[in-house]
């Protein structure tokens, strides 16, 4: 029982990282109608931006977080304007291939600039807190709090601002939204900015929890897509729920199968969703 609760704590931690990635992926999927394969590498490059801020200015990680989010959001807009915008009208699948190329370009860029070995934000061991039979690292609490804060900000943005409502409208029904005169290009730019920034936050948290590595984001891409599909394409709230479910399922699965197969669990849930409820928990535009 104690083991299960400990795994659940780890699962919620992984789940909040996945949720942040999945919210961006699902918005991009909803508004632009394609699975963005470079999303994991946005996470990685965000984490490395933060690493540079941490090492150059000697700041704590949380202070570097906004800088990393801003830079990654800007990078996402830049990539969209240079590459994706030109092929948006051709075919969604061409965008998919282009995003695959973007993923590799970003990853090799990381290897060229920061090297391909493991890195950490802070050297040294952080003593975990012992609360009864459970262990919790101070970093974990920070990640929970920061992730919850970001989710709240996204919620307020989507529900209270004109741009957030326009974004949801475009994701719900593109034609209807365009007819009502929503500025499509601005919505798309905002979508990239928010998707990139949230991915960067997820990457920084992942780097705090484990370590930085050029393929750190790529390995989480599959669980993120699983969360996106489970939550319903284009549904940010579904993506948060999906991320938490997938995170907990991946951690709990280590009770019965070897830990190396965690991605397979996410994949199995995704396939089950596609077969039995392709629209997701919260009905998305499948």
């Amino acid at each position: 029982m104690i083991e299960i609760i400990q795994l659940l704590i780890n699962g919620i931690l992984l789940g909040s990282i996945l949720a942040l990635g999945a919210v961006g992926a699902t918005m991009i999927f909803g508004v632009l109608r394609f699975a963005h394969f470079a999303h994991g590498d946005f996470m990685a490059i965000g984490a490395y931006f933060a690493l540079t801020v941490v090492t150059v200015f000697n700041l704590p990680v949380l202070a570097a977080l906004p800088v990393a989010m801003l830079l990654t959001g800007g990078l996402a807009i830049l990539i969209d304007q240079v590459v994706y915008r030109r092929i948006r009208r051709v075919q969604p699948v061409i965008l998919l291939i282009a995003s695959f190329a973007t993923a590799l370009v970003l990853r090799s860029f990381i290897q060229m600039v920061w090297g391909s070995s493991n890195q950490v934000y802070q050297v040294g061991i952080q003593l975990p807190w012992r609360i009864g039979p459970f262990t919790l690292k101070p970093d974990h609490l920070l990640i929970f709090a920061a992730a919850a804060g970001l989710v709240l900000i996204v919620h307020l943005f989507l529900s209270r601002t004109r741009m957030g409502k326009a974004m949801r409208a475009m994701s719900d029904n593109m034609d209807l939204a365009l007819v009502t005169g929503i500025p499509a290009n601005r919505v798309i730019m905002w979508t990239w900015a928010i998707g990139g920034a949230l991915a960067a936050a997820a990457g920084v948290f992942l780097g705090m929890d484990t370590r930085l590595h050029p393929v750190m984001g790529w390995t989480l891409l599959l669980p993120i897509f699983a969360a996106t599909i489970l939550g319903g394409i284009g549904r940010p709230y579904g993506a948060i729920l999906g991320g938490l479910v997938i995170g907990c399922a991946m951690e709990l699965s280590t009770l019965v199968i070897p830990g190396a197969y965690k991605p397979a669990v996410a994949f199995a849930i995704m396939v089950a969703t596609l077969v039995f409820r392709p629209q997701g928990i919260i009905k998305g535009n499948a």
Partner: protein
Amino acid sequence: MDMAGLSAYAVFFLSLVGIYAIMALGLNMQWGMTGQFNIGIAGFFAVGAYTTAILTSAPAESRVGGFDLPFLVGLAGSVIACIPVAWLVGRITARLRTDYLAIATIGIAEIIRLFFVNESWLSNGTRGIPGIEKPFGLGNNGYLLIIIAFVALAWLLVEIARRSPWGRVLRAIRDNEPATAAAGKDIARFRLQAFITGSCLMALGGGLYAHFVGFVSPEAFRPLYGTFLVWVMLIAGGSGNNLGAMLGALVVWLIWSSTEMIAGLVPTALIGSESAFRVFLIGVLLQIILVSRPQGLLPEKRPPMPGEKR
């Protein structure tokens, strides 16, 4: 470089072009003709390479096999082992949208890689399987002829398929799915057939590769080499065009090999890692092709209808 060295390099170069050409033809069957977005090429490649490695290598204590079987049995095993894997993936995803197929195939490829890394009773784990011999005691030169023979065979098969009524149905599905369904075609079945055929070609490429390098390990099946280069080849050559797929394999492998030279010219301090720089260049190249010439070097041509004059 002297003449002998040059010709040895040419043989090495052409062998890999041939192996990639077979995989590009397989992808052309899936993407070029049917519009199925498979980015799990590395997975099918790995299944092919490992199957023949286990079947034909000498017996080893640390894992199942090897069975010391002949080359052609090993290759046949590669193709046959791929069928159930491809059937499973195709069956799950045949009715789904392209995006979902893409995500599912990348998942399958990752799981296949994890499987070969972790199940060392079968694959010898990260140490890989060494000692996969070339057939009939051939050297690199002789083996190149075998590869060329298989490329010719693969091309003949996909070209016949492309001109056949079956190929017409695939293109119809790609271009207008509802109309094809209205014409009474079982779309899921045709898609499944095309997916399995294409995947088997990829497994064949994997089998030929294993015998060419003599060693397989999970490292060789990262998404880059297995999947990405094949995609660049098909898109650059012209998807839908079988000659284009093979031309793309030649051109892209030439560019990929020459990036090694470019990377050698730029000081390492500037680019950090040579291999990363090469990937960077090839990624940028793909973006440029997609933006400027999405139809590729040899655009798709519709085969003549029966009885139609050329």
